């Protein structure tokens, strides 16, 4: 399948870097032009979490909640009960972490169609430190019945994801990285919620990622092509998980490696392990934030130290390949 990736996607110097949070913010503002029932809620982070694109264009449909994320969820629930389509936008740690029980009761349980759009996910959040580096959000959302959980791989995918979420039912969570990352997909790249993307075919080992690691996995596949053949899957939708694609790949390669900027406890790797353990058990290695709180630093420094940049992932991956 042709994914119409940027023609320079294997040359990091030539691929443009853009921010996923911009993609999400711009996508929602674009959506607002045709969908008059879209309402955006912000929690004193409209600028940094990028609700501002919509707020500027449609001030009447932007609700400033102040620093009160639980209330933001309750208001979003009320709007959804009345048939509006609310997008609640702020940093992941507060959006999902602070408001988790109100999300469970007022949104997930009554199946309200509220779309949560987070910025500042993972250790990629950087210098704000562990309080703001949300690495448990996938765990917290995918365990709630009916939630759709999406982790776009770049700016362009974030833009598509927020639009695609409009037509879903029930609660949706979309997680976006704060800093700029390689924008390696293009406007032509297809995007279907719940349909994993086999961005590169291989035969020795299946490598599954989401978010900013996907591009690193593609670079690694190219770099290691003479040693080991990697099949690269972009698991942009973590719930519902695309089991068919996983199964086909795991049956072919017999070995699965997952990588993500998220705690390995309960994240995408866990979801893949849950599925394969019941359907086609194969040797697996889960890589990610290794159940710890990290520290302040630049995104680059943190990804390097915690082995989530290309070189770090390579080291962990090659150890696993030897087994």
């Amino acid at each position, binding site marked *: 399948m042709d994914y119409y990736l940027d023609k320079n996607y294997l040359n990091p110097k030539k691929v443009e870097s853009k921010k996923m949070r911009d993609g999400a913010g711009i996508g929602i503002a674009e959506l607002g032009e045709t969908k008059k029932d879209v*309402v955006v809620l912000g929690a004193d982070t409209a600028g940094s979490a990028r609700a501002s694109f919509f707020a500027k264009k449609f001030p*009447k*449909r932007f*609700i400033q*909640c*102040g620093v*009160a994320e*639980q*209330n933001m*969820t*309750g*208001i*979003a*629930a*009320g*709007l*959804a*009960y*009345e*048939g*509006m389509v*609310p997008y609640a936008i702020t940093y992941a740690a507060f959006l999902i972490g602070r408001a988790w*029980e*109100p999300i469970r*009761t*007022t949104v997930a*349980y*009554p*199946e309200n169609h509220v779309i949560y759009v987070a910025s500042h996910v993972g250790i990629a959040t950087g210098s704000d430190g562990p309080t703001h580096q949300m690495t448990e959000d996938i765990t917290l959302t995918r365990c709630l019945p009916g939630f759709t959980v999406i982790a776009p791989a770049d700016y362009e995918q974030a833009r598509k994801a927020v639009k695609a979420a409009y037509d879903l039912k029930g609660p949706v969570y979309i997680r976006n990285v704060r800093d700029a990352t390689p924008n390696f997909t293009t406007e032509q790249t297809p995007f279907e919620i719940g349909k994993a993307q086999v961005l590169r075919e291989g035969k020795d080992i299946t490598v599954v990622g989401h978010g900013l690691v996907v591009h690193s996995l593609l670079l690694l596949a190219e770099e290691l092509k003479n040693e080991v053949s990697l099949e690269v899957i972009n698991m942009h939708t973590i719930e519902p998980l695309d089991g068919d694609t996983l199964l086909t790949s795991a049956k072919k390669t017999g070995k699965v490696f997952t990588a993500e900027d998220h705690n390995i406890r309960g994240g995408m790797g866990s979801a893949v392990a849950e599925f394969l353990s019941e359907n086609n058990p194969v040797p697996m290695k889960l890589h990610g934030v290794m159940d710890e709180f990290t520290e302040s630093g630049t995104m680059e420094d943190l990804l390097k130290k915690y082995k989530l940049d290309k070189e770090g992932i390579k080291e962990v991956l090659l150890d696993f390949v030897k087994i």
Partner: protein
Amino acid sequence: MTHYEKIKTLEKKANDIRIDIIKMLEEAGAGHSAGPLGMADIFTAMYFDILKHNPKKPDWEDRDRLILSNGHIVPVRYVTMHHAGYDITREELMTLRKLGSRLEGHPSVKRIPALETSSGPLGEGLSEACGFAMARRLKGREQDYTIYVLMSDGEQQEGMTWEAAMFAGKQKFNNFVGIIDRNNIQIDGFTEDIMPLEPLREKYEAFNWHVMEMNAHDMAEIISTVQEAKSVHQQPVLIIAHTVPGKGVDFMENDYRWHGVPPGEGPEDKVPAKDQAKRALEELEGK
């Protein structure tokens, strides 16, 4: 019907509702007694006089919204809705909390859409009501119907309640009425011992609400107070409804130990467990 007759009819209805609450809780063998009995007069006034609603058409766009934040008192709502003609039969009332019943221990809007929201965990209803009010405003319908949200006094201890109170004050909602069941008890004891709420009126006033108080066992006062609340413009209204928990059953009244238990499971120093339902019904049926 004269006003006097109307009030008498409503009082009789509230008593019938209390009787059914006792029967339903006894049959369920679990649930809350004090709150539902204390709120029976308000629910009766709401469904039989105040609310603009149509039991046969619960999704009517112009209906008043009644949002129950403290979901644990939902037995009084189920019973009142049954009496008001909603699609809940007498037989179904007796299935409360049982497997397969639509009458969940705490309200589920997926089972009964006319409940408006699901609730249970405290402190969330006021936020949802704010969402209802924002949707109404965005649709340009702020004058078309009233949003009521019923809260307990205990849940005023939840921080989320005050986030929402601050938001409602900011938005200067019209036709937006919060009612607090000020019965002074919560599960562990009296509110003022557990975590004092007073001065409650001044707290809401400081959040830019218009605050009223009423004796919520005086049917005429309930109706006139809510009527007056609806005449307040560009300000959310809070009614502190002074109630007696367990109202109507002498051995339950004002005893916090009856907050979360049904007749048959309550404290036995006044009435033995096996006689509690019978005694409660005798008292109510004698009124």
